[in-house]
């Protein structure tokens, strides 16, 4: 062993180097976030809880076909409606259920939805869907998907039936109703 090697070994230079690193970090800013008083802001494309809009849905079943685990259950029927004096057949949504406890939040349903803006979306920034009982509380039917009963929205986010839009869950991008009145 060279003299330098011997000296660094005797004076424990390598150990002191390690100690200096941890000693330095002692004074760094801490990375802890005091959840639940403080929450991190999810990014815009964050795939969270579902948003669903029955009025935009055209009942094309694309989302159910795209879902890798078949948790979207859709039932519909045809109805005769009067449009411009002509009788037309319109698809009416009977049942739109999502078994959220099985969902893997892959977002393929949102990608498959053809409407503009999409009728099913995951960019809602909300992830707190914890429940005490999973079979009833984590199975969302049409009404609950829009009212978000049982879901704790991220601060500033409204449920879909109050006008939440995809990619804009807190309404930051849409014009305010007061401004529209003029």
């Amino acid at each position: 062993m060279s003299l330098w090697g011997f000296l660094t070994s005797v004076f424990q230079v390598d150990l002191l180097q390690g100690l200096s690193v941890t000693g330095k970090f002692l004074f760094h800013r801490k990375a802890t976030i005091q959840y639940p008083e403080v929450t991190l802001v999810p990014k815009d494309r964050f795939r969270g809880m579902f948003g669903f809009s029955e009025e935009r849905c055209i009942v094309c079943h694309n989302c159910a076909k795209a879902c890798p685990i078949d948790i979207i259950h859709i039932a519909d029927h045809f109805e005769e409606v009067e449009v411009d004096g002509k009788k037309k057949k319109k698809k009416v949504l009977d049942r739109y259920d999502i078994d959220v406890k099985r969902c893997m939040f892959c977002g393929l349903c949102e990608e498959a939805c053809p409407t503009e803006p999409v009728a099913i979306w995951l960019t809602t920034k909300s992830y707190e869907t914890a429940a005490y009982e999973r079979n009833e509380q984590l199975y969302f039917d049409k009404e609950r998907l829009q009212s978000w009963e049982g879901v704790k929205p991220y601060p500033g986010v409204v449920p879909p039936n109050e006008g939440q839009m995809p990619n804009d869950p807190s309404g930051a991008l849409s014009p305010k109703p007061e401004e529209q009145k003029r």
Partner: protein
Amino acid sequence: MGNPWIAFLLVPLVKIIVILLVVILMAAYLSYFERKILAYMQIRIGPNRVGPRGWLQPIADALKLFVKEDIVPSRAEKFVYMIAPALITAPALVVFSVIPFGADTTFFGLLKQPMPPYLTDINIGILFVLGVSSVGVYGVILGGWSSNNKFSLMGGMRSAAQLVSYEVPMGFSVVAVLLMAGSLSMVKIVEAQKQAGVWFVFPGIVAFFIYIVCGVAETNRNPFDLPEAESELVAGFHTEYSGMKWAFYFLAEYANMVLISSVATVLFLGGWLRPFPNAAALAFLDVIPPFIWFAAKVGFFLFCYIWFRGTFPRYRFDQLMALGWKVLLPVSLANLLVVGLGVLLMGGPK
């Protein structure tokens, strides 16, 4: 009734109670500080929910352990199983009776005459410390054996082997200090440092490092904590212990840490003395009371314990033993030789 009884019985009793309370509280709060300091080194905050900034965390832990169910494995050796934790805790606490915490003091004028703030000073102080703290090995071995669990037994054996092997170089490094001090009594060692005008760490720096390394190994702390590491196959001698008995092992480990730190302070860092006690230039430091100096030095060692835990990986057991026997022992013997020669040439112990 009357003065002799007070001096003989009441004062020591009060001192015993105070020292025991302080040591036990220190051990408990050492666990709090360890969690906080380790957390700060790991860029996170430690406990901060229980009480203001987490100060009540050790109390909460103690309460929880107190009310936990007392489980004894069905085929364990019952009597030994019950007393093994006591066998390690009692010596750790008893040794504090000879550690000098400060010079004779009137506690800021509360007392009429100055009184030594330690319990007693026997003339074989350091020998008492080494001897009684070694009794703690019984607690480890008997705890591992009585659990009737081959992993606990292996862990206990390894731990005991580690403790015993590191006693030897520790003893030799202590002897180096004794050569310089010329007495076994703890108070006289501190006074010898005052006479010499310098802490013994400066002439005895090799002995100091050996003592620190052996001290960390003696308390089963990182980087020598293989016998009790979680990620090892052999889970350690206290696997089968839970509740209050486990709390005793925990307490004993932290009390041992405080003990090693206190002894290191007395032997090497001058006990309650300020740096360079005879230098007139630093006389302004005398405004700090002696036991604050003592506490600060002990605190520094405890911080080092926690710092080591946060930084170093663990030694494997055979490497640990090799370090103790093949490296520390020859070095401590050589150091003894050198210190002895030095003392002889300087004209005897100071």
